[in-house]
């Protein structure tokens, strides 16, 4: 009974939103209501996640588990951010600098580590995969796209070079289009499967 109710609810909401693209004037208030509910539920889910995270770090701290020191730093950061956000507003320059001057360098450093990891992985590619067509082609493509991205080549007055560069730049677009078509078809199939309750991401699957 519960499964049937959930499936019926999903079907009704999905078909209503889909019909909203064709009968916007008639269904606009209902769609606004559904969108508002969705945004509200996502916000509440974020709050629940926040509470769960705080509880986990508190538990790790009080149980003196390994990594408790980092949990203490995370909790202090959370408390400071919350307190400053409540005292000042998020629009205050001090609060903005306080958050962004920590968040931006930390995230950028993680991205830099990711770049170095990718570089190292490309070095290990031949060692792990050997001299295969796939590994050599992959490395050649990566090196070529990096060179093209540097804009070293001057195309002025050389129509042949311009044609070649345009062709090489178009190759990734072909791959991109293929990926997008696959994603669109996959999304369509998943949407239909959810609509017809073949897949139940809201329940036991």
């Amino acid at each position: 009974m519960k499964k049937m109710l959930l499936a019926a609810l999903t079907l009704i909401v999905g078909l209503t939103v889909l019909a909203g693209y064709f009968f916007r004037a008639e269904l606009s208030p209902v769609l606004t209501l559904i969108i508002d509910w969705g945004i509200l539920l996502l916000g509440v889910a974020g709050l629940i996640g926040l509470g769960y995270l705080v509880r986990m770090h508190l538990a790790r701290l009080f149980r003196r588990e390994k990594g408790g020191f980092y949990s203490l730093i995370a909790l202090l950061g959370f408390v400071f951010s919350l307190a400053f956000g409540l005292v000042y507003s998020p629009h205050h320059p001090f609060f903005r600098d306080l958050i962004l001057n920590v968040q931006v360098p930390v995230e950028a450093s993680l991205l830099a580590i990711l770049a170095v990891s990718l570089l190292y992985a490309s070095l290990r590619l031949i060692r792990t995969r050997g001299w295969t067509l796939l590994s050599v082609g992959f490395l050649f493509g990566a090196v070529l796209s990096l060179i093209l991205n540097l804009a070293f080549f001057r195309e002025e007055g050389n129509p042949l070079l311009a044609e070649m560069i345009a062709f090489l730049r178009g190759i990734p677009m072909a791959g991109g289009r293929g990926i997008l078509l696959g994603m669109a078809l996959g999304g369509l199939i998943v949407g239909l499967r959810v609509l017809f309750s073949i897949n139940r991401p809201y329940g036991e699957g």
Partner: protein
Amino acid sequence: MTVLICPECGAENPLEAESCRECGASLVNILPSEKPGEDFPGDEPFDFASQDANDLPGLLQSLKQEDDLSTLDETQEPSEPDGSEEAPSEEPQEQDALPEWLRRIRQRAQEEEDSVGEITQKIAAAKDTLADDKQGQQHENFSAWLESVQKEEKQKSIEDTTEVEIDGEGDREPQPGDEDWLKRIRKIKGDTFEEEETLSPEDQAGDSLLQWLVALESGQATAQEIPEVDSDETAPEGDTQAQKAEGEEIGIGDGDTMPVSLIEPVLDVSREEQELADKLRSTIADEKTARPERTREEPAAHWVVLLILAVLLIGSLSLSLFFGNQVRMPQGTVLPQNEAVLDWAEDSEDKTAVLLIFEYAAGYANEVERVALPVLQQAIQPGTTIGMAYSNPSGLLLSERLIDQVDDYLKLTDLGYYPTAALGAYGLTDQTAAGWEFIDYPESKKPLPEWPFSAVVILSNSYEGAAGWVEQMSALDPDRPIYLLVTAQAGPLLQPYYQSGQVAGMVSGMTEAAVVETLLAGEGQALVRWRSYQIGVLICLIVIVIGVILNGSELSTNERRVRS
């Protein structure tokens, strides 16, 4: 029955088949063979259970009837106390010692054949049959015959006791969780189990299944595994003929055994299957072989190389920010999507309201700001109304940081945070005036500025986020121009949206940002950063090429060593 056995997959096929119905292999010139498992007399199924066990479904059905009967007896019992009759004259002393209710039961059992219940009749019949069989076997020698006579006497006494206890309540109380059928068995059998435990195994053979079930349920007995027939002992290796092992016994309780006939399953192995099995066996043996633990040997100078590489990378990137002349980008590198953005930024028409969507994370702030600042500084004029919406939790802070660098005197309208791009795009774009509305429905959205905006600019670091906004907005409001200012990572997958016309223009990555800045402002931060970006990418290219060559040559050396 003769069948054709496929030499490839071993499937059985009818005699008239020309090809295997499983794998399609040709069955021409295949000699018919007897169907495995049918060359045993009697064509009996593989059954470990005795005849009593096979009667179990009928036994359970009779239990149900017996339960109904006992219920009926209980309801009739209060009306019968005055209806007692005299005991039979053959056993006057015993009748005097018996209680009144037992005397009535015995009397009723003599008058009515069905009063003892079908279950008791079946048990008695099974015992008689078993005793007759044993009698026939044991008459071969006299001593065995004498023993059987004694056992018959015991059997009679047990039957009497069983009949007496049929409707009586046993001492053992039903345990919680007992199955109904087991309660009925316990109710019928009562204490007779305890008495029968003293009997010989031959006497208990008829009731052993019921006893074993009760003992198993009460924890007095444990389920014993059926002994496996060792194929190595019963058949020589490689022999695939059906083998029959007779006289095996399986345990059914404490010391009880049941004689069964074990029929070894037919194993028809093709040559291909045998080869696969041999390979698997050799693989397993190889895995179990003890090997010396391999220790990773790192050269002593390994960390020195890494240190030099890190210093070189960081030092060159840092120095390039402070030294060197500014780079001038060539004109020929302007892409069509960049030209569309340049045209919109330099066009002075209709920029009263622009909607900015902030869809990038803090880690990408520097790159996105380098891409967006030249365009926004050119496009946004004093007095332009800027609507700001975010689908990233840090969007508010990042938007203010960016807007502060654009102009201090802008009309800003904060449209708030939307947890997902699709919801935000749908909610913002769907401004259709409805013919009806919910009464007293609370207004949850901030009041929007006058729609429509002249353009929508999406600042993003990922394909997914930007695509969500583009797809919803281009579907609901296809006439509104959408411009993308994104990172190099998101650019390639978003370019098809420009080619399909859903996006009016796009700038992605540091290289395109440097080109656009050169054309719009002549100089700026993007050009300075682009030099560092260029040097960093160049170092990465060199490292990749050198590393691949070194690793490849080492790999080739190892291969040659292995071959030699």
